[in-house]
């Protein structure tokens, strides 16, 4: 039976049962048997108590069955699952009705369960991180069985087309050119984003009038909201030809898949990230520091350069690190505008490829899932994960220190 059908039958069976449970339980609190006694909770709470008793064990059982099914330990037939779940639910309903008596603290039981459910929900975010780490690591381990980690990290040629399953994979998966491409493009992006972003932040925090700020801040935020696929298209169709013709003007030859175009566009994309984070930290530098400097006769700009920026430096560094992490992991712009060919060069006008491009390329080709090229994507993903995790955590710690210092 199809999974969707199983779900349908399950819910068609359970929801009416829950409704029945609610009504029976509330009805029981009004029954003659308890006349004269005061209930601990309102009738509705007993209704919810009955619903919980009905649904919770049944859903738990189906969840366990689903896990067993997925891990392949036990094969549970759909009809049996539905029948068992509904039987458990009916049993739960009966137990609930039997246990309802005035001294039962129904509301406390229900609310404790709710809080537990909320706690479980908060675990999902942890599970997501764990899931990312595990899913990437497991496949990456398979990859590093075929290719040695050392070759992967120090090799200078990346040519996975030569790696056919079963054949020797020596010297084909050297990831240095991919890292070089990634850092070249990240570097260009930072050269664009850091000065513009930082000066924008200074302008908005120190100079701009409230009206100007009201217009400029959302306008900058628009840059952050544009989807990356749109930036990628813009980089490939408009900026790349512009770079090529500009290079021609100076008599230099440039590829159409040069590293400069995606770098420039990525830099623009990152401007709002740097400017809004720096803006926050600059405004949270206490005014007394500024006033002290101004009172000594320093110009505004001198105050900013010698007092405000050094004080805000941790926050700015943290913004910078987040921006680097964002640029390293950015995918669509480089997929659309940077090259596919691994190329180790210092020339930004040549085509270079990046880690993320190779990851996407490995999955959109027609290789088998366990081919070395597809698995190499997980190896690259692992490196990407480690690098961005380190950058993010350092940045989070630095900004937290900064906040503790001034707020």
């Amino acid at each position: 039976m199809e999974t969707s059908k199983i779900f349908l039958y399950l819910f068609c069976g359970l929801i009416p049962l829950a409704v029945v449970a609610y009504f029976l339980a509330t009805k029981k609190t009004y029954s003659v048997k308890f006349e004269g006694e005061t209930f601990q909770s309102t009738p509705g709470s007993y209704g919810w108590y009955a619903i919980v008793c009905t649904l919770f064990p049944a859903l738990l059982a189906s969840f366990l069955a689903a896990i067993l099914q997925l891990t392949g330990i036990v094969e549970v037939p759909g009809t049996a699952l539905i029948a068992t779940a509904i039987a458990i639910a009916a049993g739960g309903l009966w137990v609930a009705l039997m246990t309802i008596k005035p001294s039962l603290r129904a509301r406390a039981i229900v609310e404790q369960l709710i809080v537990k459910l909320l706690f479980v929900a908060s675990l999902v975010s942890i599970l997501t991180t764990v899931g990312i780490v595990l899913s990437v690591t497991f496949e990456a381990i398979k990859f590093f069985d075929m290719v040695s980690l050392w070759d992967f990290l120090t090799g200078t040629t990346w040519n996975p087309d030569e790696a056919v399953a079963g054949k020797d994979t020596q010297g084909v998966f050297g990831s240095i050119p991919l890292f070089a491409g990634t850092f070249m493009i990240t570097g260009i992006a930072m050269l664009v984003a850091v000065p513009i972003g930082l000066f924008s932040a200074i302008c908005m925090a120190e100079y701009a009038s409230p009206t100007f700020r009201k217009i400029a801040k959302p306008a900058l935020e628009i840059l952050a909201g544009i989807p990356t696929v749109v930036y990628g298209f813009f980089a490939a169709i408009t900026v790349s030809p512009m770079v090529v013709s500009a290079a021609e003007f100076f008599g230099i030859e440039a590829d159409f898949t040069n590293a400069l175009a995606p770098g420039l566009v990525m830099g623009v994309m990152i401007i709002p990230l740097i400017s809004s984070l720096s803006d926050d930290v600059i405004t949270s530098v206490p005014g007394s520091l500024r006033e002290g400097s101004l009172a000594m006769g320093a110009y505004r700009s001198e105050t900013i350069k010698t007092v405000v920026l050094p004080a805000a430096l941790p926050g700015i560094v943290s913004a910078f690190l987040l921006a680097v992490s964002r640029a390293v992991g950015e995918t669509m712009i480089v997929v659309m505008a940077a090259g596919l060919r691994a190329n180790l060069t210092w020339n930004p006008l040549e085509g270079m490829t990046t880690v993320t491009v190779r990851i996407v390329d490995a999955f959109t080709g027609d290789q088998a899932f366990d081919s070395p090229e597809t698995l190499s994507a997980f190896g690259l993903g692992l490196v990407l994960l480690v690098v961005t995790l380190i950058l993010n955590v350092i940045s989070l710690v630095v900004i937290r220190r900064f906040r503790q210092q001034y707020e």
Partner: protein
Amino acid sequence: MQISIDPKQLKRRERRDRMFVGYSYAAIFLAGAFLVFFFADIVRTAWSAFEQAELRVELHYNEEAKEMGDYALSEEMSYLVSRGVTRLIPNQMRENRSLLGTTQEKWVLADAEVDQYLKGKPNRLKKKERQLVDRLRDEGHARLAFNIGFFENGDSKLPEMAGIWAAAVGSMYVLIITFLFSFPLGVATAIYLEEFAPDNRFMQIIEVNINNLAAIPSILFGLLGLSIFINFMGVPRSSALAGGLTLSLMTLPVIIISTRAAILAIPDSIREGALALGATRWQMVLTNVLPLSLPGILTGTIIGLARAIGETAPLMIVGMMAYIPEAPDGFTSAATVLPAQIYTWSSDSLRAFTERTSAGIIVLLAVMLLMNGVAIYLRNKYETKW
């Protein structure tokens, strides 16, 4: 003590000060200029895609056309009319037998090259064909009409037939899944962290983890979706379900962070009032905190979903960029989404696809703008300043 000020130095300092102010405004105007240039460029390339060339031709429904639609047209015209039109003629004749032997004159879709020629763009028409098209235009038998097919059709290998509809439907399906999973989970997490969580080390780890999750590259979520949802849980590849689940994990931190901010903004006096009247903590949350923070929560959710609708990289990994011409008819059937459609078109070498790409981008940006507009409207209308 006497302070001597070198007037030259003072002048230099003043000049530097003025330049610094100049730089800082220049930075903002540079970013603004880019924004203007960017939108102008996209709109300029996209403009023409909302018009499509049509030709007025005579269709002869004869015996031969029953097998090959091309025979319904005169030979010279059959090269100018879209293959998407002629392909359908045999079917139409089979369905409506009375057509046989009749002749109809009507406007039909022109080939993409004719379309590009009429728009004055580079094309691959031969000289003779160009003269023919010129003549047709002078006679009023060739025109540019509003491109309604773009909003009704799915993807196609023929640029003149390709439309955005299937991708829009796919995006909607993905968004529904994303909302269904990320909204309850995100709000529940935020409530727990703000109202119930004990202040211990584990909770700090969860907090750092959520902030970190918001900064993990989206492509890694794609790898997660591929190995957990598709390979482990058996969710069909390319389906809206796989894409939606992946995106819901990405949207989760955005919703959690904005919900926490909304809950945090509610003053404690509200909570104390509820507790003083004998409400339990959960009752306080349900009847006071949640209703008051709902505008903020919804704003954050819509902004998170607007970001999800523009996300491409993780969806490429879970297979949502394949050539899918039909709109999906369920959460488990193969689907494509707006940004993936834009990517597919942008990587096509035919020039006519370039303007479709820009038009697709405009549709995507319009949808995002609408969502963000709704979010801002909600915030301004319902947000209470305490």
